[in-house]
């Protein structure tokens, strides 16, 4: 299994040598056929599931930037998602803005909120930061739940679907193209960030704050930047969620349980590992959906899974695979050197 993945990884690497965007374009084209494939084999409902997977991929990838790269424990991410969703929904419904305008505005609002959620990180660390962000995230949900203008207990209904000219994107498989494009772009940029000086600064902060600061990294600034970038992802996912058919959102979509599910995705996939987060998002969303008849036991099982993961596989699926790839490369390099000298 692992040797298959390492072969796959090196195949992608050789593709990337031709042009660095080539693997992305190929993946994108292949994914364009996915809705047809899913409809033919499983039925249309599963396209909707794929759409939700894409949303959670965006959320998990964004959370990975602040938690995985930068090491800041945040439990307020779902609150940002809620802000993105409600802002875009209200702008579209009350002011008649098209999706293409309401979504960027929602992202902008979410960024400001992300800055607020990030502020405690300048002073607090670890569990204390988790508590502070939890409070902020949960207060967003409660605010939505008690304010009639934000939907309160009935939720916001009849949120208009995005349109291109006269065409309305309201079927599941057409909406898939939208969310999948967003997810692919999101994943791509998270790689760009990881490999830049900004990504290295994030990781340095995660590893050792003091060593990072004497290396010339403006620690508070980069911490806030990580929160703001993750807020862009959350805001985008939120806006896409709000306009997704059937165009309905309710504050129950933004509970702490959802946040825990999101954390489970990131932990299962491997904290700080981008593909791990993607795999985690897909696996957890699908399992969550397929076991919803047993919803009573879900939180229990998810909790136990989380504990076992942290104890036995702290680096998640992605971490295990990454280690295998690194080890293989190291061995190959040394074999080459030995051949060269002998």
């Amino acid at each position: 299994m692992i040797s298959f993945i390492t072969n796959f990884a090196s195949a992608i690497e050789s593709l990337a040598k031709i042009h660095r965007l080539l693997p992305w374009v190929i993946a994108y084209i292949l994914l364009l056929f996915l809705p047809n494939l899913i409809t033919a084999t499983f039925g249309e409902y599963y396209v909707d599931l794929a759409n939700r997977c894409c949303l959670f991929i965006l959320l998990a990838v964004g959370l990975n930037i602040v938690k995985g790269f930068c090491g800041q424990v945040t439990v307020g991410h779902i609150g940002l998602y809620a802000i993105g969703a409600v802002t875009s929904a209200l702008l579209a419904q009350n002011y008649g803005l098209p999706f293409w305008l309401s979504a960027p505005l929602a992202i902008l609002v979410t960024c400001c909120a992300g800055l607020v959620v990030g502020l405690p990180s300048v002073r607090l660390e670890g569990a204390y930061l988790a508590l502070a962000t939890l409070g902020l995230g949960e207060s967003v949900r409660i605010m939505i739940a008690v304010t009639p203008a934000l939907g309160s207990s009935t939720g916001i209904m009849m949120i208009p679907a995005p349109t291109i000219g006269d065409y309305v994107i309201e079927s599941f498989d057409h909406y898939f193209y939208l969310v999948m494009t967003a997810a692919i772009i999101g994943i791509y940029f998270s790689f760009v960030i990881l490999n830049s000086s900004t990504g290295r600064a994030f990781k340095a902060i995660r590893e050792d704050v003091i060593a990072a600061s004497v290396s010339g990294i403006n620690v508070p600034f980069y911490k806030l930047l990580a929160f703001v970038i993750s807020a862009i992802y959350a805001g985008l996912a939120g806006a896409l969620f709000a306009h997704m058919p059937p165009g309905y959102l309710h504050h129950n979509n933004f509970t702490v349980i959802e946040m825990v599910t999101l954390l489970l995705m990131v932990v299962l996939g491997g904290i700080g590992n981008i593909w791990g987060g993607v795999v985690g998002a897909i696996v957890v969303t699908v399992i969550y959906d397929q076991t919803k008849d047993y919803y009573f036991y879900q939180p229990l099982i998810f909790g136990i899974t989380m504990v076992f993961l942290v104890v036995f596989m702290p680096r998640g699926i992605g971490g295990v695979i990454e280690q295998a790839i690194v080890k293989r490369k190291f061995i190959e390099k040394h074999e080459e050197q030995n051949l060269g000298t002998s």
Partner: protein
Amino acid sequence: MALLETRGLSKSFGGLKAVSGVDLKVQPGTVHGLIGPNGSGKSTFFNLVTGVYQPDPGSHIEFDGHDITNLQAHGIAALGMARTFQLLRLFSEMTVLENVMVGNHCKTSYGIVESLLGTSRVRQADQNMKEEMLDLLEFIGLANFADIPAGELSGGQRRLLALGRAIAMKPKLLLLDEPGAGLSPVNVDKLMETILGLKERYELTVVVVEHILKVVMSTCETISVLDHGQKIAEGPPEMIKNDHAVIEAYLGRELPDDEIRNAIRGQ
């Protein structure tokens, strides 16, 4: 003019004066030793100078013509001051190459927005930086380990990497906090050779805290001695070796026989 100058540098933690009123001048191009018994304030001195701690009011630190007394650590680093830590503080989950690249952070030639968009200029600049950093790793002898996590290096290699990360900043002044701690005497000599090699190659000024006096005496041009947070002596190695206050600080004060007898009897 001195590259680093402190005047009346003080820091207290609660009632404890870790550093009090230290005046120190480091001349450019020299290797300056800082010695003293445990708890004499050497590490605190480093932490104050590099901005990890904020000094008490009334202190004054000047570096390369800038007043850095109230600057934060990253601002001081950007002016060209690098340091290593006694406990290394490597970024252990990042690769060896990434560690030195973080050291080079201040020299990044592109802006933050550009780095988020991943323009071709960013990729080009990163590629150049990578080559430069591999060159540095080659010099300190870690080029073969560039792609493995820093946490998997051996103790001696970690010390080298900590040094490499500091050098990657292309600093004017390099502060070394016990570079030889935990190394065998042979390896300490090798390390000092590397340090002197780096000093020549990158035209550095070095301040070194070290407990192995042999090393300090043989490499430093000037030595300052701290005891209980105060500077008790300063000068070339020969002078320090024979300084009465220094010997007392290290070995304790000599007492006349009858005073000792009285102390033992509790009188």
